[in-house]
């Protein structure tokens, strides 16, 4: 009797898990498509002129889209997928430059200049008010 019940429990848990996986899969499909669009929208099609992989219909883009979709289904993160592609194709494939040591100046410069100018301007205006 105990064996029968525990076997049934085991069986029920299996069915439950299968159903659960099934249900969550249909929601995941949408999320995966959304993630796919977001990731491929920032990747360069290596055989096109400045097009993103998302926009391009080239063979290369189709292949990469398949590979990324597979990786998303496997649960890889955006960072891991980008690293995977960069290792093979170089940083050139990323339209958004990585935030690493060689690109530090690129990312910091605009905000640095902006803040410095704002501070200098504020100081000048204050000085102007004081002398008035």
């Amino acid at each position: 009797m105990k064996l029968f019940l525990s076997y049934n429990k085991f069986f029920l848990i299996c069915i439950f898990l299968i159903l659960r996986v099934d249900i969550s899969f249909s929601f995941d499909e949408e999320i995966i498509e959304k993630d796919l669009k977001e990731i491929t929208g920032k990747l360069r099609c290596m055989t096109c002129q400045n097009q993103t992989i998302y926009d391009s219909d080239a063979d290369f883009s189709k292949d990469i889209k398949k590979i990324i979709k597979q990786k998303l289904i496997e649960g890889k993160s955006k960072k891991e997928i980008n690293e995977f592609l960069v290792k093979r194709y170089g940083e050139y494939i990323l339209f958004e430059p990585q935030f690493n040591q060689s690109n530090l100046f690129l990312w910091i410069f605009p905000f640095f200049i902006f803040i410095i100018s704002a501070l200098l301007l504020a100081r000048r205006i204050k000085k102007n008010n004081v002398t008035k």
Partner: protein
Amino acid sequence: MDWCFYYDKLRFIGTIKKMKKIIFLLPLLTVLIVTSFLLIFLLQEKNSNKPPSALLNKDLPEFKIINLFNNNEFLKSSDIKKKQSIINFFASWCSPCKEEHPLLIKLKNSHKNLLIIGINHKDKKINAIKFINNEGNPYDFVGQDSDGKIGLEFGVFGLPETFLTDRSGKIIFKQLGPLTDTIINNEIIPLLQ
């Protein structure tokens, strides 16, 4: 101690004035710096369609590829790690591959100890075998990469592409597009050990 105070103030004003003068030189400096970089870039004759390879000076990617002519034979990356080799990605449908093929044969004939590996990328087995039979076989091993997975590991995105490794298994040269006599003589042969 008044003169101390005035002296420091004057020095401070002096530095501010110098800084202001430098600001006016900034545009000129930017022009000079940017022009120098652009000049160097132009003189290096880089090609805007051919980015430098991401695998340069990195280890050979791990792979295991099946022999085009023999389903039971495989080649692993570890097999060629200690030897210098040329890895040439080609396909029967790629016309520049056909054009560079005689040069590979010539290279193999003049450097018998050089390992030349051909990888047939995204092609049909029948067409690949026909290609080799018609054009000649410079390869010590021809691998079959029908689904392109091996090419993916090497960052291949167009054909032909040719890699050269050194004796420690690092990739030291990559050519995008067909090989020419100039490239072989000026860039590949000097790197042969």
